[in-house]
C-alpha cells in the first residue's frame, strides 16, 4: 500500500555463482589428478632425478601390473598368495568383531566393565601393537594363525571403543521412555542402546577394516608364510621395485573390498542415519 508502484523498473536477476571446481564432474577431476601425478612421476624418472631402484618408471610399473594381473587371473602362485592373505584378513576381522563387540558390550553396559576392564584396555591400546608380532609367532608358529592373531589384535580395539561409545549414545529421555514402559535391561540393550549405537559401531568397523589389513601384512612381513606380504618382501629384497608397486596396488584392492563391504552394510542397516562417515559417500 505504498501508492505509486514502480513497475517500469527491470526485475533484478541474481544468478548464484557456482565455483569452478563444483561444476566439473567428479570423475573428470579425479582423472585429471591421476594424469597429472603420472606425468610428474614420468618426468622425474625420465630425467633421472631419482634412481630406478627407488622409483621405477610408470611404464615399468604398468607392465608389472599387467604381469601380476595375468598371474592372478590364470590362477598362478600369486593368486594362492592373495587367497592366503584374504583368509588371514577375513578370519582376523571376524575374530576382532566377535571379541571387540563382546568386550564393548561388557565395557559399555556394565559398571564392572567400565570401572575394571576399560583401564586395562586403554593401557594395552596405547602400546605399539605390532611389537607383539614376535610373541604371536613364537606362540602360534609361522603359519596363518600367528598373522590372524596379530591382525585381530590390532583390529579389536577400535571396535571395543566404538561399541562402548555407541551404548552410551542413547539419550536420557530415551532411557527414561524404556524404563517407563517397563523394559528389562536386556530389552533396553537390544531394542534401544544397540540400534542407537550402530552408527558408532560401524565407524569402529571401518577403522578395524583398515587395521586388520595392516596387521595381516605386518604379520606376513615378520613371520614369512605364503601370503601376499611375503611376496612383497621377496620382491623388495630383490630390488624389484616395479613388482613391489604392482603387488601393493593389487593388495589395496583387498583392503578396499573389505572397507566397502562395511560401508555397504552400514547403508543397509543404518538406513535412518543419512550422514555416514569418511569414505561413505564415495
Amino acid at each position, binding site marked *: 500500500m505504498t501508492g505509486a508502484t514502480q513497475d517500469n523498473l527491470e526485475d533484478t536477476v541474481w544468478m548464484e555463482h557456482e565455483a569452478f571446481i563444483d561444476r566439473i564432474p567428479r570423475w573428470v577431476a579425479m582423472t585429471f589428478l591421476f594424469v597429472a601425478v603420472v606425468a610428474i612421476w614420468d618426468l622425474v624418472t625420465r630425467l633421472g632425478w631419482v634412481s630406478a631402484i627407488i622409483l621405477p618408471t610408470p611404464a615399468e610399473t604398468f607392465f608389472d601390473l599387467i604381469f601380476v594381473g595375468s598371474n592372478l587371473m590364470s590362477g598362478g602362485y600369486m593368486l594362492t598368495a592373495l587367497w592366503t592373505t584374504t583368509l588371514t584378513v577375513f578370519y582376523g576381522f571376524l575374530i576382532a568383531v566377535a571379541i571387540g563387540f563382546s568386550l564393548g558390550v561388557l565395557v559399555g553396559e556394565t559398571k564392572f566393565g567400565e570401572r575394571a576392564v576399560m583401564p586395562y584396555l586403554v593401557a594395552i591400546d596405547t602400546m605399539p601393537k605390532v611389537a607383539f608380532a614376535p610373541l604371536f609367532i613364537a606362540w602360534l608358529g609361522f603359519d596363518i594363525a600367528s598373522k590372524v592373531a596379530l591382525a585381530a589384535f590390532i583390529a579389536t580395539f577400535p571396535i571395543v571403543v566404538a561399541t562402548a561409545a555407541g551404548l552410551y549414545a542413547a*539419550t536420557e*529421555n*530415551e532411557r*527414561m*521412555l*524404556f*524404563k*517407563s*514402559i*517397563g*523394559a528389562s535391561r536386556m*530389552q533396553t540393550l537390544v*531394542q*534401544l542402546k544397540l*540400534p542407537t549405537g550402530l552408527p558408532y559401531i560401524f565407524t569402529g568397523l571401518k577403522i578395524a577394516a583398515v587395521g586388520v589389513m595392516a596387521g595381516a601384512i605386518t604379520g606376513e612381513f615378520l613371520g614369512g608364510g605364503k601370503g601376499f606380504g611375503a611376496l612383497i618382501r621377496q620382491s623388495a629384497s630383490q630390488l624389484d621395485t616395479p613388482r613391489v608397486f604392482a603387488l601393493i596396488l593389487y593388495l589395496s584392492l583387498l583392503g578396499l573390498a573389505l572397507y566397502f563391504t562395511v560401508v555397504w552394510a552400514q547403508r543397509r542397516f543404518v*538406513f*535412518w*542415519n*543419512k550422514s555416514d562417515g569418511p569414505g561413505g559417500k564415495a
Partner: protein
Amino acid sequence: MAESRTASTESATQDAWPIYEIKRLSKTYARHNVTALSGVELTINKGEFVSVIGSSGCGKSTLLKIMAGLLPPTTGRVTLEGQPVTGPSTHIGMMFQQATLLPWKTTIENVVLPIAIREGRSAAKAAHSRGMALLELVGLGEFAEAYPGELSGGMAQRASICRMLVSDPSMLLLDEPFSALDELTRDFMNMELQRICAERQATTFLVTHSLDEAVILSDRILVMKSRPGRIVEDVRIDLPRPRTLEMVNTPYFGEIISHIRGLLGKEAHE
C-alpha cells in the same frame, strides 16, 4: 483400563476419589547432595487436570519421575490408586519434552512400542489397529508407515501422544511435552490434549513453564519454589469447560496470571 464408573466430566472435584496421594515427600540426590524436594503433600483426584509451574531446577521433573516410579523418594509415601508406587505401572502414560521416537521404527511401530516391550511382538502386531485408530485421531493416519525422520516436530509429538495412549493409561504424566514446539503448534497441541483428556476422562499431571498453558488446561495449578523444591500454593482455576484459546482475553484469566506471577516473584521467567 480406564474405568468410567461415573460420567461426571464437568466437575471432577465432586464425587471424585483420590487417585494419587503423596505425603511428606522429600528427595535428596546422592550426587552433589542436592535436596530437590522437601515436604511435598499432594492429592490428585480422579479425572483432574493438575499442572505444576515453577522456575527451572525447582524439582518439577523430580516430582514427576517419583510419581512415575522411575526414581525412588528419599522419604515419604506415594500411592497410586491405593498401592504404593515402587516402579513403572501400566496405568501410567508418559510424555517428555522430546518426542523420542525411535528412528529405525515406522510411526505405527513406535506407537505400539509399549505393547511390544510388555507383551511381545505378536501382541504389538495385534495392537496395530488400535495404534492406527489413535494416529487417525491426531490426524497422522497417512504417516503410519513413515519413519520419524519424515515427521515435523509437532507431528512427532502427536505420534508420541499416541504411544502414550496405546496401553490405555488412566493417569497421564507429562513433562513439558510441547515446550520444544513453536507457539502456534503448541496452542493447537494443547487443545488436542484437552480434547483427548476429556474424552478418556484421564487424570493428568502436567509439568510446564508456560503460565498461559497451565491456566488454559488445568483445574488446579501447583506453584513450586526452589531450594528446596516445595509446593507454595495450590491455585484452583474456575473457568468453564471446554476451555478455548479466547479465554486468555477474559479478566478472570488475567487476574489468575498476575496472582501466580506474584507468587513466583523474581523466580518467574516468562
